[in-house]
């Protein structure tokens, strides 16, 4: 495995952040504005995809920007795990961009410029999370992701949306504080936070109690965005956001940045051997299993379609965490079991992303065409608009169901 020094990871992160400027500047000309969004999305996907062959060969693109603060270098690494997440986020951003255009125009939403600008910023942060090379850079983009998505959660500017926004900020910044505390402890114990396959060596020899505290802080912090119970309640409330936001950010980019953080902590900070040795993998697996079951039961009782999907997300995310945690808990001397659990968990990142995004697109298509519905009234909507109902039953490219589709 060789490192290829290149600006590509940085460019992949920045391309959508840079696009925020022309998006804001062309607020008077919606078609041009959306053109920038699409252009940035295509560039981003191209940049991310161009790094895939190297990753398959086992090489890693690295952007080194020099030291940032003591112990910490500002470095971006597009390793296999990061590319997986970045590829999912940037592919689905392109798809969601088209969907967003139809959705926002179809519903004649207000503040569309702010919406598209914040969306571009959010995706930048998500890819930054993917390419972070150490805990501080990860924390940096994790916090920026919070800042960039807040305008999308509070987009409606209703009391409900503002309350959801407040809750979102309180939860995610609270998680950020835990991450920061955990990161500081890791710095204290190991002198570095750079992600290392198999774990940071210095941690293994450190005080086990402090190491456990650091693990607990980090996992709690990332667990907020991963919506581990009991830290999940911001997610159903955040469904007040426009549907494409719920789809891309609250089923893919934001929540998976939390899961991704948990994965990094287990795999590349502590390493699964140390996690097993400290006995913390089992605890995390138990929390994930509890969340998985409880959230599913709660989802059964949700009438609001998006809230139901949100609880489903809570549950599905815990599949991923469970896979990673079981991998960590079972690492010692169990051969392939740990490996398969890990692979299963990580595979569920893109799998759930595609499934849940499509579901949200369907929910949004019905919302933009019909009045917002609860699941109880869906059969009625189905009879009012049979073709759309049928379409929403099968995961077709959902933007077709927006205003660009024939007949709307």
């Amino acid at each position, binding site marked *: 495995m060789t490192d290829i020094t290149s600006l590509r990871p940085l460019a992949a992160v920045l391309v959508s952040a840079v696009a925020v400027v022309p998006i804001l500047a062309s607020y008077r000309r919606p078609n041009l504005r959306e053109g920038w969004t699409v252009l940035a999305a295509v560039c981003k996907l191209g940049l991310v995809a161009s790094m895939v062959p190297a990753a398959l060969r086992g090489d890693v693109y690295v952007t080194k920007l*020099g*030291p*940032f*603060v*003591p*112990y910490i270098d*500002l470095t971006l690494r597009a390793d296999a795990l990061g590319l997986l997440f970045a590829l999912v986020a940037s592919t689905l951003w392109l798809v969601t961009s088209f969907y967003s255009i139809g959705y926002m125009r179809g519903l004649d939403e207000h503040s569309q410029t*702010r919406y598209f600008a914040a969306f571009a910023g959010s995706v930048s942060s998500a890819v930054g999370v993917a390419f972070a090379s150490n805990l*501080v850079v990860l*924390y*940096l983009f994790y*916090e*920026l992701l*919070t*800042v960039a998505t807040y*305008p999308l959660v*509070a987009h409606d*500017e209703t009391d409900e*949306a*503002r309350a959801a*926004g*407040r809750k979102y*900020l*309180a939860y995610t*910044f*609270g998680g*950020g*504080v835990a991450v*920061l*505390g955990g990161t*500081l*402890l890791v*710095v*204290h114990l190991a002198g570095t936070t750079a992600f290392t396959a198999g774990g940071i060596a210095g941690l293994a020899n450190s005080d086990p109690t402090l190491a456990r505290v650091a693990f607990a802080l980090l996992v709690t912090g990332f667990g907020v965005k991963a919506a581990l119970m009991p830290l999940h309640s911001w997610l159903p409330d955040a469904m007040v956001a426009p549907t494409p936001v719920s789809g891309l950010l609250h089923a893919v980019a934001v929540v998976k940045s939390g899961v991704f953080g948990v994965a990094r902590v287990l795999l590349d900070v502590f390493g699964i051997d140390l996690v097993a040795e400290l006995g913390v993998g089992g605890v995390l697996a138990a929390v994930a299993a509890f969340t998985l079951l409880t959230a599913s039961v709660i989802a059964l009782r949700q009438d609001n379609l998006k809230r139901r999907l949100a609880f489903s997300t809570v549950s599905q995310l815990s599949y991923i965490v469970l896979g990673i945690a079981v991998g960590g808990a079972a690492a010692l001397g169990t051969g392939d079991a740990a490996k398969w659990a890990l692979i299963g968990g990580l595979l569920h990142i893109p799998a759930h992303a595609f499934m849940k995004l499509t579901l949200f697109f369907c929910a949004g298509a019905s919302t933009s065409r019909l009045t917002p519905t609860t699941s109880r009234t869906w059969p009625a909507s189905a009879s009012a608009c049979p073709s759309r109902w049928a379409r929403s039953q099968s995961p077709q490219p959902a933007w077709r169901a927006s205003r660009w589709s024939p007949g709307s």
Partner: protein
Amino acid sequence: MAVSDLAALVVALPIFGSLVAFLAALVRSKSGWPVAVAATAAQLAVTVTLAVRAFGEGTITYVVGGFEAPYGIELVVDGLTGTMLVLIAAVSLGVLAYARRAGPRSNPFYAVFMLLVAGLTGMSVTADLFNMYVFLEITGLSAYALVASGDRGRSAVAALKYLLVGTVGASLFLLGVGYAYIDTGTLNMADLAVKLAANGYTATLTQTAFALIVVGLFIKVAVFPLHTWQPDAYAGAPDTVSGLISALVSTVAAYALLRVVFTVFGTAFLDANPFAHALLVGGAIISILLGSLLAVSQSEVKRMLAYSSVSQFGLIVAAISIGNVTALTGAAVHLVGHAIMKGGLFLTAGLVATETGARSVDEYEGLVKRSPVGAGVFGVLAVAMVGVPPTIGFAGKWYIAVGAAEAGSWTLLAVIVGSTLLTLAYFARLVERMFFREPTADLEPAVERADGALPDGGDLGGSDPGSASLGMYAAVVAAAVLAVALGFAVFGYGDVLQSTIEALLS
């Protein structure tokens, strides 16, 4: 001219500028601003030269009047001093750009303005404890006068309160200096350090001197519960003045605290006197927590920002109480960062009031539609203040927190890290109102004008009252850009500052 002469020039220049601004009124009224700009620009050039030399070649020393230390007064410029000097000059220049339209516009105002710059600069460069008191008083008196330059009764009351409390602080400081002098017979800081050590750190006189000086400076820094002058002063002063004093006055007082604690008393003193250490730690924690809580409960934006300062300076005091290289580098970074962010926030609050008349938290509803630049800059600076990376607000906090971890101060670490959430608590409600609410009431754009109070005031260029000038926009946008951009420069700065801090701690 030798480089060391610049250390004297840097104090003389603003005093001279003050004098010229005052006398220029005899020739032509409203001529204070250009004089102040010229003097401050020259000051910036000199301070940058000094700072570059201090960082590159080490400490610069100037002996005033040829009387050698410890009898005469020494001026010393090391890396830390250089930082403060450049900060003072740069912030003053930014505030001047803002003040062109925002006023006050009288010549006496600019004369006092330059005097404040001189006092702050003097406090930074002096290596003599009594001389520091003199500059502390110059700073204090000119700050009281500047606060009183507003044309409302409120300004006068605020200035009076500031005068009373500030004078108590300065007197305590002077009393402490006196005790130290009785103890040792010297006032030179370096000489004091040697003689205090020789007397033993547990001598009652030494302990009393420390307590008096630190509490006196706590008042100037506005550490809870000695902060009560500050919200009134910041909220009652004209916007230009709140921007200037919030960015510089407490900052330089905190620098003085750092200087006195480490250059005069030293880490060995703190180790020998648990009460001294507890005084710093206690002041820090109470300030961080209660300052934030008070900020959350404010309904006026400028008062909220003032209480935020109480909390942020708690972080600086925390760094001083930790007292290792990393934490003190963090203190320097956060002093600079806070000055830029808080000064920028106050100027932005003034800009917003100029454009829309909004001054209370509720009046900020829907601000983004009425004052997009104001709301945008406020948002960026608020995010920086909360400490979201990669802004300078994060960098300072990171250094201090790493320092706390290195020293094993887990309580302080928890408070420092947790302060992020407290800061968020008071900024989030404002950000939410600015961006995610419709404006409720129509407000009259109210320019704060000095016309009423100052006979020689008046309009420049005949622009309409509700508009902000290019200089005002430039000042606040520059603050926002710097708050983000400097975050990337911090590591290099920490590197060059390291030798200074190590010398300070040895």
